[in-house]
């Protein structure tokens, strides 16, 4: 199914990554895209269109989530890659790493509510002007699972204003009807933020796991919309 014209994906594997295989399955088995694993010691990202930082517990979440992975050799290459306009998607722990690396603004804190939350959540699509969400409808509600203990997104007031001004908030936790309420917020995240992108819109981080719901037999295939957005021709 894979053709030479398709986008090529690289999935970075850190010690402690555990959603790398799921991301591979979604992209390769389900979407037919060419995918390579990239070991965290590698520094060559040439030939890739999109680099994925997968979920997991890189370096055991020691110190802070993503804090040690951020200094893995591959991350300098990822920062250069992103700076040159390459697509970088961080999922869950990958989002945490992007925050620690400064590729996205803000920081992640422990969940409010004393729990590691592992369940499906409803997400409102706030922004479709990204390579990750262009196949979605603005304002639509997706069902995608989360699984994290530290998804409580924080940014100071100035940063939050900047995110809003540049339309960088991509997903928010919502009710099934699409309302943004405190009850729909699973982790205390600022303004129910579940995913953001950078100003240039080529780097996105999201706590929910699209790779875990890219196949109807898994209960939801809403995650496919992320891959369809990436693979769709302009």
């Amino acid at each position, binding site marked *: 199914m894979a053709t030479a014209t398709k986008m090529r994906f690289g999935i970075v594997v850190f010690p402690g990554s555990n959603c790398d295989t799921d991301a591979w399955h979604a992209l390769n088995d389900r979407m037919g895209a060419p995918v390579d694993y990239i070991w965290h010691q590698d520094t060559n990202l040439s030939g890739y269109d999109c680099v994925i930082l997968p979920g997991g517990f890189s370096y055991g979440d020691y110190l802070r989530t993503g804090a*040690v992975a951020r*200094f893995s050799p591959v991350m300098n290459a990822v920062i250069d890659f992103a700076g040159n306009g390459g697509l970088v998607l961080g999922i869950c722990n990958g989002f945490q790493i992007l925050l*620690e690396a400064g590729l996205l603004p803000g*920081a992640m*804190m422990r*969940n409010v509510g*004393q729990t590691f939350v592992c369940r499906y959540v409803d997400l409102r699509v706030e922004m479709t002007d990204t390579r990750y969400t262009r196949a979605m409808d603005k304002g639509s509600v997706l069902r995608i699972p989360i699984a994290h203990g530290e998804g*409580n997104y*924080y*940014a100071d007031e100035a940063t939050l204003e900047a995110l809003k001004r540049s339309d960088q908030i991509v997903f928010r936790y919502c009710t099934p009807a699409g309302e943004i309420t405190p009850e729909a917020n699973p982790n205390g995240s600022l303004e129910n933020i579940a995913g953001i992108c950078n100003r240039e819109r080529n780097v996105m981080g999201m706590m929910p796991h699209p790779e875990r719901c890219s196949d109807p037999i898994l209960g939801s295939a809403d995650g496919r919309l992320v891959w369809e957005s990436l693979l769709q021709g302009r």
Partner: protein
Amino acid sequence: MAKARVIITLKKTIMDAQGQTVEKALHNLGYEGVENLRMGKYVEMDLNGAPKDKLPAQIDEMCRRLLANPIIEDFRVEIEE
């Protein structure tokens, strides 16, 4: 050789969910006067590399780059020679 100790806590302006939970647990144990409990991290290290006058700046840099996240955390350093 110098010894450095670093104490890292969430900024005062940031809600500390973990600290609040531990504070409540102490209340449940009967310690009713406990207030403003903040959780944090403690790091200690021996330092043989940099000359003594450079140590404060070097540890400050370590904290900003890795040991603390300046967006959400404050840190305090003690150096013992």
